[in-house]
């Protein structure tokens, strides 16, 4: 079953979705049919090579398959596990349920809580952004709604875990997070497909609505298999005095094109966008970030750090936009690339568009090898070159890994990086 209008209908029926959502899928499908693949003459796609990706070859749906590659992190307050394209199974602490926390597959939420889903779904991550976003909106499968009511604080993290093992299909989970006033919690999305041996078309998109005074930590850990093509859009809408800490970890996939965006809508809103990537083999990663200061007294802080090995290629392009009325905004943006091989290629494009003078905006980008002075110092202390290099790379990542909002995710990322460093 390739991508067809029928597959859109079938997915809607499978999940028993309400009519409004079915209509929305159809609209997205129309967009998908209408617009062509992004043109490489467009700036955002100039460096993106998705040759070898043929959307026609993927099935629109993957039945539940395989076994979970690992247990979820310990001490989670709630877990949603999704296999293939089917809606996930949920465990949530009873106490949170009593407090009004809603955590369920998106299709179920569309039926039971349309007031939470209807106006928000695909309002930040729009279907008409490009053909891949349209495919995602038309064919998204499973996915999650997490709603945390006003003034509810959740100590332990909530986890969404998505895996696929077959390949050959589109795996398009969508996470919708709604934080009420002064709500506080952390959330981890884990995307796994360790045994994927055929190409897959994947996403890992998220829309995060941060209410007034709320504080949300969101970590996305992408470990799709090495044959996956990932197109994901992660975007937070942040109201007055709200704060979002978004942490993107990109490790898997043959190809990953990720947008990570903060839409600072209310006075006093703040966003922290952090990213870690490790590209090896012939992996290609492309990150586009946006810190959109729509209003004044907002702050944003971005740091994307990554290492490149073998013939990997990484593109980072980030934009700080300060709108006209956004006085007293403070924005920072940095991208650091550690190039560990002769044939890896890094492109870094940190951009600023500043329309207000009463602001502080700084950015920086670096591309470079392991610092020979640091290496020399460690070697002079009797540490072998390989170990010394490894220590330096660990230190390089340490600066940003330390900023992961909660401990469980931090450990998980540390383990993954350890494994990659070998």
């Amino acid at each position, binding site marked *: 079953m390739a991508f067809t209008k029928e597959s859109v209908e079938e997915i809607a029926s499978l999940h028993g979705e309400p009519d409004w959502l079915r209509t929305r899928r159809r609209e997205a499908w129309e967009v998908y049919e209408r617009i062509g693949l992004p043109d490489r*003459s467009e*700036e955002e796609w100039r460096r993106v090579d998705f040759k070898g990706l043929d959307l026609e070859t993927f099935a629109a749906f993957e039945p539940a398959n395989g076994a979970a590659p690992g247990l979820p992190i310990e001490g989670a307050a709630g877990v949603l596990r999704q296999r293939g394209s089917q809606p996930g199974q949920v465990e949530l602490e009873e106490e949170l349920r009593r407090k009004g926390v809603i955590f369920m597959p998106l299709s179920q939420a569309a039926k039971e809580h349309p007031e939470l889903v209807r106006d928000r779904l695909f309002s930040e991550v729009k279907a008409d952004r490009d053909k891949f976003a349209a495919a995602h909106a038309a064919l998204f499968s499973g996915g999650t709604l997490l709603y945390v009511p006003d003034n509810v604080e959740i100590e332990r993290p909530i986890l969404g875990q998505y895996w696929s093992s077959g390949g050959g299909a589109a795996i398009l989970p969508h996470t919708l997070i709604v934080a009420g006033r002064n709500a506080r919690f952390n959330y981890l999305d884990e995307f796994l497909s360790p045994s994927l041996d055929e190409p897959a078309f994947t996403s890992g998109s998220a829309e995060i609505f941060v209410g007034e005074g709320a504080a949300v930590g969101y970590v996305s850990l992408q470990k799709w298999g090495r044959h996956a093509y990932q197109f994901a859009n992660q975007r937070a809408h942040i109201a007055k005095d709200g704060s979002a800490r978004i942490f993107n970890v990109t490790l898997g996939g043959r190809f990953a094109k990720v947008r990570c965006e903060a839409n600072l809508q209310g006075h006093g809103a703040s966003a922290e966008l952090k990213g870690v990537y490790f590209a090896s083999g012939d992996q290609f990663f492309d990150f586009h970030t946006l810190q959109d200061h729509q209003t004044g007294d907002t702050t944003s802080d971005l740091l994307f750090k990554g290492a490149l090995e073998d013939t990997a290629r990484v593109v980072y392009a980030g934009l700080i936009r300060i709108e*006209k009325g956004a*006085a007293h905004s403070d924005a920072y943006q940095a991208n650091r*690339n550690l*190039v560990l*091989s*002769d*044939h890896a*290629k*890094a*492109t*870094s*494009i*940190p*951009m*600023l*568009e*500043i*329309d*207000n*003078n*009463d*602001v*502080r*905006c*700084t*950015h*920086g*980008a*670096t*591309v*470079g*090898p392991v610092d020979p002075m640091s290496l020399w110092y460690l070697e002079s202390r009797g540490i072998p070159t390989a170990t010394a290099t490894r220590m330096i790379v660990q230190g390089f990542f340490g600066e940003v890994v330390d900023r992961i909002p909660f401990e469980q995710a931090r450990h998980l990322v540390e383990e993954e990086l350890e494994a990659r460093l070998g």
Partner: protein
Amino acid sequence: MAVAPKINVGDDYKEKYGFFDPEKFVFKAKRGLTDEIIQEISWMKGEPEWMTKLRLKSHAIFLKKKLPTWGADLSVIDFDNIFYFLKSTEKQGTTWDEVPEDIKRTFDKLGIPEAERKFLAGVSAQYESEVVYHSLHQKLTDQGVVFTDTDTALREHPDLFKEYFGTIIPPADNKFAALNTAVWSGGSFIYVPKGVHVDIPLQAYFRINAENMGQFERTLIICDEGSFVHYIEGCTAPIYTTDSLHSAVVEIIVKRNARCRYTTIQNWSTNVYNLVTKRAVVYADATMEWVDGNLGSQITMKYPSVYLMEPGAKGDVLSVAFAGKGQHQDAGGKMIHVAPNTTSTITSKSISKGGGRTSYRGHVKVYPGANHCKSFVKCDALLLDDESRSDTYPYNDVDAENVTLGHEATVSKVSDEQLFYLMSRGITLNEAETMIVNGFIEPFTKELPLEYAVELNRLIQLEMEGSVG
């Protein structure tokens, strides 16, 4: 030889530093561009056949190429409403006395001739589309330095000319390079022989002085091995009511161990579209320095670039942009590291005020095999009010090993503490701001010859007047 009419300087120079001289032309081409006009231009200049052919070929490329889709909006340029060639006097002035009075007066307003006489060896002053005045110090001639206008160079140094012309920036490079190659007129041609150090800056002044007239000068500089030259290009232009196009091409070859510095202070009137392609290729252990100041024009799109072709080559861009009301300065630099062990720096300082917009746009590219390169880019932007805008678009591409590349940028307003300090010393707000702005661009100013630094400070002062509302 034209006779200069009496001009009431006070009335005519109505704008701050804008100039206007009555139009008085020997030949005036028709508006718009056709193959016939190009053939006519080439015929009038008595050019060899290869140049006529190149012009026609470039015209075809120009018609085919699209306008850039990024940067400023250029769709308003009406290519059919532009004069592509004008000739102001039939004969070239050879001494200062022979230069028409009104042209001299235009120079006088800038306060340049005095300094010029003291400091400078040769002046190649472009008035309208062709060089009218040119004098070269005997010493330079003795050294074998060729400093002439580009038209003369084609006649007198045909072999040297043909060897390099259009090799650094081929007509197919971009739409405006194609246009320039089709209709170029004037500009400077410099050849510095092996080991020769030209110890005084060579200068040329450019003017646009006819309504709706495009100016397409073409400059070619060849620094032979171990030589040095500093070329200064400064522009001011009269104020007119309709848009004018300035589209120059500058090609520079810096051979082994040589060093070339190219300084520009661009102060076109604020109706000019300034779309310039500047590029240098630099060989082993040689250095190219672009010192590029953009104050005038309505829209400038200019990114001086350096191709670092052999190990040890070094490139430097120092760029300053000032955008006032209605202006968009889209400037920056490009460093293309083709060979290993090459280094480059780009320093950009931009100031926006009164709704003006400055954009830094730069590209640092390190090709495969160009190992052990170092590049550093620093951009600072100052926003003087909340109507203005500043953008930074740096592209950094690294495709080689052991490359160290850094980029930093800041955008800020004039700091309240600095203003408070200065004002507490009895300095007015306007003066204080001017001082801060002058301090901000000081890394640029200090690279200029004294008389230019003075002129620049004066221009900034004029720009800043009334900026506090």
